[in-house]
């Protein structure tokens, strides 16, 4: 591991036994894991390059237990790392050796399905897909659909502001959230929003979404559900060069079409997924687009015509329109198997997540090729082209000396490139530990300090998930100071305004 984490607190490590005794008084014995074998299960999330054994794993079952555990941790100065299903790709749930891992897996009940208000209230450990499945028979679904939706939890989705392939039209988690209950580090349970649109007061819903477990522990989530569209259509478009594919994406959007999904794969992704899934993709292309359109049948038919015409004008070499639901599913088959397909051709892979302006796509992919060559590691590109969210998969071999370090360096170069062209470090996976040390490429010291002051409002002792998101940890007392020197005020002479 090449990652620097906060220095473990010796006092906490020394007092581990008595602290575990106090935890045992709060949660049932089965829900407290402290033996090394049991802890090993929790040593990492889906960013498996980084691992650590926590002080203990605590699996509370009630909001009261969450509150008591947090109060106890505050009293003893013990750090807390919250965890949903552990599918996160940025190391947000990486344990700390002097902190407990607070698993929300037992919060797994759907509390209420309210069709008249078109919302569902769930506990945070419910999986993303389970929400859609619970309301499917009534004709509804939950829009954000991260690729890990079978396993990832709604609480984790809120913590990372997860997206998926349909965000361009239907938004990411923050746009589909109505209410939260969150327990603060001091044990207070706070409710924000509810079943109505627009919570009152400051937008705490907005600031908690994507806060990566640093502000509070989510114990209840209310999401809006949407009626399923009448019909869904898809086109498969192949191009002889990246620039034409990028141009096609820009022209579809500029023409006023907002596809339900607009995905791109580069040549290496097309080949890898075709070998793996036999989706029937053309192999003579440099870039492949999947454009999904949904809505009334008449609209899908008309927009499909328009997209087809645009693709031909952009010199598409393959233009196929799905003639059946079965064919549409086949278009997606390769894209959806991109991760296992790359897993088959490379011992390890590292999935990167940055967002760029759509218009810079072909430039970024060209420069990315050069970076891949420079670091000597292959890259497969899958891309949520509609919203500019890039997912390069860096192929490496953890067993080979120096490969992980090379992969990390390449990843840092790719993300720095995203920021340089006007994009951001993360589109939907979060900063976690993975991109923590790159935050300075996007933000000034003043920007980051202001963000940390928000953390201070929630968690003044900095016990919730420290070592994530922020490259430098400031003490709240220090952040509170205003550095003003009365003598040299900028405006002794105000009227000049």
């Amino acid at each position, binding site marked *: 591991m090449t990652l620097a984490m906060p220095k473990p607190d010796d006092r906490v490590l020394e007092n581990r036994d008595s602290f575990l005794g106090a935890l045992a008084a709060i949660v049932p014995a089965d829900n407290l894991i402290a033996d090394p074998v049991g802890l090993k299960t929790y040593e990492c999330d889906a960013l498996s390059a980084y691992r650590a054994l926590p002080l203990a794993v605590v699996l509370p079952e009630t909001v009261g237990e969450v509150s008591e555990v947090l109060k106890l941790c505050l009293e003893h100065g013990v750090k807390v790392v919250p965890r949903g299903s552990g599918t996160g790709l940025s190391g947000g749930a990486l344990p700390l050796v002097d902190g407990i891992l607070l698993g929300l897996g037992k919060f797994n009940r759907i509390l209420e399905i309210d*069709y*008249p*208000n*078109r919302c569902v209230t769930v506990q945070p450990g419910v999986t993303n897909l389970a929400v859609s499945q619970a309301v499917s028979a009534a004709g509804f679904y939950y829009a954000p659909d991260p690729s890990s939706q079978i396993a990832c939890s709604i609480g984790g989705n809120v913590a*990372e502001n997860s*997206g998926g392939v349909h*965000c361009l039209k239907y938004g*990411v988690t923050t*746009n589909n959230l109505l209410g939260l209950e969150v327990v603060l580090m001091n044990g207070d*349970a*706070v409710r*924000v929003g*509810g*079943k*109505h*649109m627009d*919570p*009152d*007061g400051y937008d705490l*819903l907005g*600031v908690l979404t*994507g806060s990566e477990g640093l*502000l509070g522990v989510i114990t209840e989530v209310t999401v809006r559900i949407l*009626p*399923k569209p*009448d019909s869904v259509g898809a086109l498969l478009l192949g191009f002889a060069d990246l620039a034409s594919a990028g141009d096609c994406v820009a022209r579809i*959007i*500029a023409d*006023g*079409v*907002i596809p339900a999904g607009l995905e791109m794969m580069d040549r290496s992704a097309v080949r890898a997924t075709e070998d793996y899934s036999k989706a029937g993709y053309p192999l003579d292309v440099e870039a492949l687009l999947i454009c999904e359109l949904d*809505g*009334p049948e008449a609209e899908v038919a008309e927009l499909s015509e328009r997209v087809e015409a645009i693709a031909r004008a952009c010199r598409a070499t393959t233009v196929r329109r799905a003639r059946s639901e079965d064919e549409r599913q086949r278009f997606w088959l390769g894209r959806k198997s991109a991760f296992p397909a790359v897993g088959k051709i490379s011992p390890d892979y590292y999935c990167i997540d940055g*967002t760029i*302006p*759509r*218009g810079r796509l072909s430039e970024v992919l060209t420069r990315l090729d050069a970076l891949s060559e420079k670091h000597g590691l292959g890259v497969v590109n899958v891309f949520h082209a509609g919203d500019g969210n890039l997912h390069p998969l860096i192929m490496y071999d953890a067993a080979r000396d120096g490969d992980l370090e090379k992969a990390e360096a390449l990843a840092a170069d790719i993300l720095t490139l995203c920021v340089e062209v006007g994009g*951001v470090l*993360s*589109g939907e*996976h979060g*900063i976690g530990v993975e991109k923590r040390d790159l*935050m300075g490429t*996007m*933000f*000034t010291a*003043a920007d980051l300090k*202001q963000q940390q002051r*928000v*953390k*201070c*409002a929630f968690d003044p002792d900095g016990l919730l998930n420290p070592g994530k998101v922020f490259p430098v940890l400031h003490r709240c007392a220090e*952040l509170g100071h*205003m550095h*003003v020197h009365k003598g040299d*005020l*900028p*405006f002794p002479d*105000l009227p000049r*305004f």
Partner: protein
Amino acid sequence: MTAQTVRPGDAAAVREFLAWAAAGKAPVEIVGAGTKRAFGHAVEAGYRLDLSGLSGVVDHEPAELVLTARAATPIAEIEALLRQSGQRLAFEPPDLGPLLGEAAGRATLGGILACNLSGPRRVRAGAARDHALGVEVATGRGELIKSGGRVVKNVSGYDLTKLMCGSWGTLGVLTRVSVKVLPAAEKTRTVLVAGLSPGEACDAMGAALASPHEATAAAHVPEAAAARSSVAYVGGAGASATAVRVEGPPVSVAARTEALRGLLSAHGAVEELHGHNSGRFWREIRDVAGPIGDADAVWRLHIPPASGGAVLDGLAEHGVEGYLDWGGGLVWCGAPATRAVSAAVRAQADAHGGHATLVRAPGALKEAVPVFHPQPAGRAALGRRIGDGFDPAGILNPGRMARGA
């Protein structure tokens, strides 16, 4: 107290001024075009920060679906620019100027975002805050910071952009914002059902919004409010009107209108509004002044949409009348300016798990009744701690959101 007006020409000057004001703990009232000064508690401040010098679109890239503008750029200017490339601000920003005794058409992008105001399309397109992608902000610490960016998908640090939306200038002064823009609809039609009670209307709107026909707005105006409409079909009908809007490509709008007519005919007799009348009707719903009339106190309630009928009926018992937008989830109502009625309005919001805002009221009522819904102690304290982090000297719009805060 007569405030001294300060009119900086750029973000750096805003920052410098706030650093100066913070050092002297001098309260500052923040004003864009000033169209919403009557909304919220009055701010007692020695300085008025006039942001009208920070105006103009910085950048609009139609194919990127993003626009960046200085904070005090008029919404009207932005909408005119977007029209040229067939785009719009999908959250349908309302023009509350006339409701609040000001001229129409002057609201600014920064003001709309700072108050998180959204129009009828809120039910489908999301709120103003959902369209804010990034901000540059001068804080009460006299620092210029940024959050977010110019892209739609972004999880890079806390979403301070959303925190700014709806903070009413109490956390920082927006100097520049980037917003998502979307294609404008080629065609619009509105399906009307006459004569429904508020409860029946909520059922009908709920059925429309739960259907796959992609309604982009759903409102209900009871008979009294309908009579104030300048749209002849609505104003002259002598009955309540329940309206559902569809937008999109012509062929799609035709198909969906047909489907919605079929669905809504189960609830009552169905009519249709086309182009001009449809546009005028939804502007009235959006801007509130028309349907609300000349009531002394005007309230806005955010409630679960299915509660709309019950809330309107409950309010009627106290002589409060109004109308429903957002499929029933937003109640606008006019009420007598008394403490007793105000308490009854708040009680309705509480009973349904929502919140009520006193949007327009005589000064005396605002002395006695909080404009924004009182919060539970824990959340209020959290809000104050967040505020202290941005504005430790308490100089930004002090008291605007809560008196004595």
